[in-house]
């Protein structure tokens, strides 16, 4: 046992030395993501967004060298995420915390950000309340209610009167459901039924059959990305629910590239709201997509990559304003109100809430050049998080 | 075969002694195989009974029923005056009915001192004590050690059970049962598998047990049976075929024909 401890000790000591050898002109960014486990793929894409930005814009900003230190939180594990954040600060002496894919981990990270006074940039986690947990926390992804409330009011405005909702039975699902219902009802729509589906759920046939029995005009769905969207899409096709007749509304995970590949033509006609797609027709995005594909072996970037890319944009822009000073109070002040143009369009950090303000696109799955793509046909600009907006009014 | 046994129990021998263990109409079958047929037995206090019979006669099954490891289909079991038919095995042990096993059923990773101490503390009702070191319970430990010394296991009582010679393990079987302070002890072939020259040692130990202890043992070696038993019960096909003193059994032609004549067991 002793020997093992000693061996461990030498290893650890080596790590310590590396940590303390810090150059003066360096700004360290600690990235916490679930690089292994169930969410590994998403983490990889956020990480690629970060890498691509640094490749394009270099690793120095405002005279400081940017160094990234990556930590694996391995799935939903707030104690681990919190410990990693603490270690990044006390051992690696990072100046900024970034990454953050999962809500519970992000909330744990916020505790560290607030206590250590370090800016924390959320590049994906989409629960509204996270940014309230630390005065130094900001976000470059989106919030679920931004997307689903927008979709709900769009649906009500565009002739859909009655809708059925299907969401995964966990907190993000509940947020998505509530957001959609709020937007839809505010526009005069009526909810004819709702179901919350088990989170660990390989087979959707029973839920889809239930929806089909009600035969609604439209079905709103929210499920986590990964294996489930394809399974759900197939279940729709199998049950003979044709998106061209019954409108299927969802968030972007449902028609993510890998999901579309698995669903095949059965996905045609699904309508989703989302802040980003590789198919967006602006010059900046086309360059971004081309560079991404070149760099990472042919796959298209998605909203994870965009979150990572824009997170780095925000950090660079903030540091430019503070002239390389990463002091949390100065940096977060500089980030507030920052506007920039991203592959997904114009972006801003709301000076009041530190949350992101952006365009939400309404897209439909269509076949373009033999491939299934999300074609945007409508958009709502300057969308703010509706939960924070409601809180402001109170 | 519900006919009365060939020889009635010699009533005068047991009439004036209390009954330690009795069964009434004990019957059991596995499907169509009848393993116990209407067994009535009376074991007087302090008796030394041998239970004999050909393989498959239901001897071990009878012990299993008496100790509660098998449930009879019908019939009753009495320990002294108390009906114990529906008690859990451990509750029968606590009332004074102990057994040993034909195939060693020991605590391989414990040493004899630990194993016998375990049985002693269970009997004393202190086995649930988790806040005191076991060494605090000196009386229990010395009692266990005393049993081991008595059974000639004193010199190997710190050696893990799995490393003990086979004959010693058979003695440990008995030591574990004795540690429960039984009134009635059922020994299932105590010398099974022990070379013949050593099996005498085991029965010497058995014979030296207190006179108050009622014994029932299964044994195939007729020399041993006739030497140590005060009474013999012959079980055939799950039923009591005969019972009586060794002399009576030896003289019985029925037993000779059915059992002794046909099978000589070594």
């Amino acid at each position, binding site marked *: 046992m002793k020997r093992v*401890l000693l061996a461990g000790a030498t290893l650890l000591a080596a790590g310590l030395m590396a940590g303390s050898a810090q150059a003066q002109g360096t700004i360290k960014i600690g990235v916490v993501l679930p690089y292994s486990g169930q969410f590994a793929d998403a983490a990889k894409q956020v990480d690629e967004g970060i890498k691509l930005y640094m490749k394009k814009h270099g690793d120095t900003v405002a005279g400081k060298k940017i160094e990234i230190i990556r930590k694996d939180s391995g799935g939903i594990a707030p104690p681990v995420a919190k410990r990693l954040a603490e270690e990044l600060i006390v051992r690696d002496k990072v100046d900024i915390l970034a990454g953050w894919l999962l809500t519970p981990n992000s909330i744990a990270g916020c505790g560290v950000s607030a*206590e250590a006074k370090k800016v924390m940039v959320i590049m994906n986690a989409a629960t509204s309340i996270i940014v309230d947990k630390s005065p130094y926390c900001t976000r470059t992804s989106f919030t679920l209610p931004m997307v689903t409330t927008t979709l709900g009011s769009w649906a009500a405005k565009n002739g859909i009167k009655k809708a059925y909702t299907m969401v995964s039975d966990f907190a993000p699902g509940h947020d998505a459901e509530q957001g959609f219902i709020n937007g839809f009802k505010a526009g005069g729509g009526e909810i004819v039924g709702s179901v919350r589906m088990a989170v660990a759920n390989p087979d959707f046939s029973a839920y889809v059959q239930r929806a089909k029995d009600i035969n609604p005009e439209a079905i709103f769905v929210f499920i986590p990305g990964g294996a489930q969207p394809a399974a759900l899409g197939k279940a729709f096709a199998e049950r003979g629910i044709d998106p061209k007749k019954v409108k299927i509304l969802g968030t972007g995970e449902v028609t993510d590239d890998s999901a579309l590949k698995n669903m095949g033509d059965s996905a045609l006609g699904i309508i989703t709201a989302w802040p980003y797609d590789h198919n967006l027709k602006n010059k900046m995005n086309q360059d971004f997509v081309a560079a991404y594909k070149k760099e990472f072996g042919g796959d298209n970037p998605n909203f994870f990559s965009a979150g990572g890319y824009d997170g780095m944009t925000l950090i660079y822009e903030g540091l430019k304003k503070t002239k390389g000073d990463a002091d949390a109070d100065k940096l977060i002040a500089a980030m507030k109100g920052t506007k920039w143009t991203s592959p997904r369009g114009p972006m801003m950090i709301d000076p009041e809430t530190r949350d992101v303000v952006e365009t939400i696109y309404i897209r439909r799955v269509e076949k373009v050049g033999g491939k299934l793509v999300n074609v945007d046909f409508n958009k709502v600009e300057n969308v703010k998080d509706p939960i924070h907006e409601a809180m402001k009014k109170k | 075969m519900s006919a009365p046994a060939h020889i009635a129990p010699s009533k005068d021998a047991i009439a004036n002694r209390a009954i330690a263990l009795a069964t009434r109409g004990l019957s059991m079958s596995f499907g169509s195989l009848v393993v116990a047929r209407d067994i009535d037995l009376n074991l007087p206090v302090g008796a030394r009974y041998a239970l004999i019979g050909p393989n498959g006669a239901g001897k071990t099954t009878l012990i299993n029923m008496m100790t509660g490891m098998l449930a009879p289909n019908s019939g009753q079991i009495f320990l002294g005056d108390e009906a114990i038919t529906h008690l859990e095995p451990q509750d029968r042990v606590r009332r004074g009915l102990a057994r040993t096993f034909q195939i060693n059923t*020991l605590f391989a990773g414990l040493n004899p001192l630990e194993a016998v101490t375990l049985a002693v503390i269970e009997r004393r009702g202190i086995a649930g004590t988790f806040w005191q070191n*076991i060494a605090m319970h000196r009386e229990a*430990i010395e009692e266990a050690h005393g049993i081991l010394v008595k059974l000639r296991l004193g010199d190997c009582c710190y050696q893990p059970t799995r490393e003990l010679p086979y004959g010693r393990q058979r003695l440990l079987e008995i030591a574990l049962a004795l540690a429960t302070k039984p009134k009635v002890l059922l020994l299932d072939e105590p010398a099974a598998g022990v070379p013949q020259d050593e099996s005498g040692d085991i029965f010497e130990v058995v014979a030296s047990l207190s006179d108050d202890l009622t014994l029932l043992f299964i044994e195939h070696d007729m020399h041993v049976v006739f030497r140590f038993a005060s009474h013999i019960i012959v079980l055939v096909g799950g039923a009591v075929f005969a019972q009586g003193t060794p002399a009576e059994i030896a003289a019985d032609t029925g037993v000779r024909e059915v059992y002794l004549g046909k099978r000589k067991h070594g």
Partner: protein
Amino acid sequence: MPASAAPSTPQQYLQSLSRWHPIEIAFWLATLTPFLLFPTYLSLASQIAVAALFALSLDLILGYAGIVSLGHAAFFGIGAYTAGLFSKFVWGEPLSGLLVATAMAALVGYASSFIVARFRHLTLIMITLGLGLLLAEAANSAGWLTGGSDGLQGVDIWPLLGLFKFDLYGTTAYAYSLSVLFVVFLMARRLINSPFGLALRGIRENWVRMPAIGADSRSHIRKVYTISAGVAGIAGAVIAQTTSTVSLEALSFERSADVLVMLVLGGAGRLYGGLVGAAIFMIARDQFSGIAPQFWYFWIGILLIAVVMLLPNGILGGLSKILARWRGR
């Protein structure tokens, strides 16, 4: 070992079995070294201590009574949620929260022990697994209480003893978890060397013989299961208090499986098995994932395979066998 001790009476012999070995003292002294040598690793050390505590609780039932559970996270989670909710709704004083959490986990452990004591082998494993998963699903459904999958919000832990804040460096956290671990370890050690501990070893060594010596194994199992659940609850409460976070992950199957792996890795049925296993597993994981965040699974897998092949019965089991052989030569 027994022969070399040459005790004069059986009582002294049994006493000698529970004597402190110099290696044990060295082990506990070594647990203090992070304070001096690795001050930036205290958060990790604290979480190792919690994992060790959890593994110790599993060892009580698995290693000493032979009850394999794949749902032990249920009690870890109950401890964590109770401690978190206590801090949210009553007050944030950690020691009282720890006691309440322990009692709650032990209470649920006692209730479920009536089911657990009836089964053995695969059936038992699957029933513990099933009960654990049911509880995890229930916690997800009861979002009004638990915060669902976002985790419990509003956990607020006061400074320890009113003096020591749970800080970024993890100094207080490690001091707290290590003290709790040590106290619980002392109690577990006493339990193992008690009459009850002997009865548990009896159950592990021979389930069939126990009733024949008058032992009611089921009541022993109910008791140890309750104790083990309480200890798991302590572990859960400590992680909740030291990190101020509680989430569904505390109840997850992964946590149950991880603790089993840690215990078996270290060596089940040995007091230090869970401690050593937890330390090696967590340090290895931390180091491997530092090298390759995406592929540390590979190296952990290789580590497990190598240990099974080279050191059967866990690291401690294998080492003691090798040591015995080496001494015998």
